[in-house]
């Protein structure tokens, strides 16, 4: 592993902070030792473990595989037409085993926990990681402690509880919940996947980039729209594109990164717009996109660097724009997203309509969570329906004909 700040290298142990400077650690690979070719990959299983050599697991025995990954990259003619884009694709990660992209990092982290002979795992979650960690822990036979802030959608909690996880609901924000989980990890020897297993955990999300390259016939897109909370996924996607180039699996990487946040919790967008190098945290996020409500994004400063380097941008969407986008996506492409997906589609729409995206650009918009996780986000006018008498006249009446 290598320190993101000072560059010092460390063995791949159960550590997450640099012993020299306290900076965050990232897993590194010797790309000369990895012989992944297009032909090899074509013959592999259709999930994220097809990239085994690029994931930080040593022994295949430890793989916890619920089938996460290799989701559809959907060409979006209809949505594209509506917003004026000719080459638009949605990476539809709503179809993962627990219905969000979090199955990718969770499956890698829980596998790593087995490799470390961990006794218990857990996570600090804004909702989706909870179910993802709980499901993979169940399959691994490990007890699981899930820390969530109050206010998370009931479906996400029910789903997590069904997998048998111990749910610790905290009075406070995500950031307070995360800090508590941090202390619990140290004192009670629980491997919190997104805290002390963080370097391994984030590797799972790189597969969002690998798959898109493969699905675009071994080319990188011109632009990607990424719903962002802590920024871990955005950093992982950027690393994924770079690694595919390193291995000669794709051409030059010239992908503009777009960080999409919810207006009520947009600390990275704010810093980007004021050209700051720091990220000022937000104490009390307020947004319909609960899964993106991280006021103090751990990877925020690194996201800013990557946005600038890729000539990308950052943009926020209001609650109304988010729910409108959920409907637009569902009604044009048949994909039902949770609010985080609404955020990326809303930002995509804004940039396209403002003319900031060339109509011919190859754009990939990441839709990372399923709408069934948060049906209450939709306005009641569209979800309510009044029952009618089982008579054809009543039907005629309600459809107005």
């Amino acid at each position, binding site marked *: 592993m290598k320190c993101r*700040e000072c560059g010092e290298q460390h063995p791949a142990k159960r*550590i*997450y*902070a640099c*012993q*020299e*400077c*306290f*900076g*965050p650690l990232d897993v590194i690979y010797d790309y000369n030792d990895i012989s992944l070719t297009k032909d090899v990959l074509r013959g592999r299983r259709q999930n994220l473990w097809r990239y085994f050599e690029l994931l930080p697991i040593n022994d295949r025995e430890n793989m916890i595989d619920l089938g996460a990954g290799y989701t559809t990259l959907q060409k979006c003619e209809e949505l594209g037409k509506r917003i004026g884009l000719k080459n638009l694709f949605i990476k539809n990660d709503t179809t993962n085993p627990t219905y969000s992209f*979090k199955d990718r*990092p969770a499956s890698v982290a829980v596998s790593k926990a087995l490799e470390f002979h961990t006794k218990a795992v857990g*996570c*600090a*979650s*804004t909702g*989706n*990681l909870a179910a993802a960690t709980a499901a993979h822990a169940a399959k691994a036979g490990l007890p699981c402690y899930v820390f969530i802030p109050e206010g998370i959608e009931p479906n996400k909690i029910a789903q997590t509880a069904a997998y048998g996880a111990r749910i610790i609901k905290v009075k406070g924000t*995500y*950031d*307070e919940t*995360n*800090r508590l989980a*941090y*202390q619990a990890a*140290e004192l009670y020897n629980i491997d919190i996947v*997104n*805290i002390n297993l*963080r370097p391994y955990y*984030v590797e799972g999300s790189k597969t969002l980039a690998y798959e898109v390259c493969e699905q675009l016939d071994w080319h990188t897109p011109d632009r990607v729209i990424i719903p962002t*909370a*802590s*920024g*871990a*996924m955005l950093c992982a996607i950027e690393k994924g594109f770079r690694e595919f180039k390193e291995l000669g699996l794709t051409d030059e990487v010239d992908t503009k990164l777009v960080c999409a946040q919810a207006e009520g919790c947009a600390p990275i967008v704010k810093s980007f717009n004021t050209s700051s190098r*720091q990220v*000022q*945290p937000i*104490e009390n996020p307020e947004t319909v996109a609960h899964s993106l409500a*991280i006021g*103090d*994004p*751990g*990877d925020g*400063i690194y996201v800013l660097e990557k946005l600038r380097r890729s000539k990308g941008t950052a943009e926020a969407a209001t609650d109304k724009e988010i729910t409108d986008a959920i409907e637009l996506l569902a009604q044009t492409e048949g994909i039902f997203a949770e609010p985080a997906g609404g955020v990326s589609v809303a930002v995509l729409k804004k940039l396209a309509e403002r003319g900031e995206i060339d109509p011919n650009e190859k754009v990939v918009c990441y839709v990372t969570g399923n709408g069934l996780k948060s049906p209450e986000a939709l306005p009641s006018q569209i979800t309510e329906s009044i029952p009618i008498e089982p008579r054809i006249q009543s039907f005629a009446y309600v459809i107005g004909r």
Partner: protein
Amino acid sequence: MTEITIIFSHALISATNNQREIRVKGENLGEILNKLAKRYGNEFKKKLFDKEGKIKRFINIYINGKDTRFLDGLETKLKKGDEILIIPAVSGG
């Protein structure tokens, strides 16, 4: 002078003679950190402060669970029994 409890992250204790929790006297956060820097020396300073002597951007300090960036930063006044927690900023989800 006011006595304060300080709790260090595991990842930091190699720089604090393996101490996880100590008590120190001081009136504000800046003063406490200076005392710690004197007590533990270079190894500690190298981990906590950047080249300009500021707290590193990937380190978070909490007082009684509240992020000091929402308080007065290094100027934050302390009272008896306050608990300071020093941990790296960790990404979430």
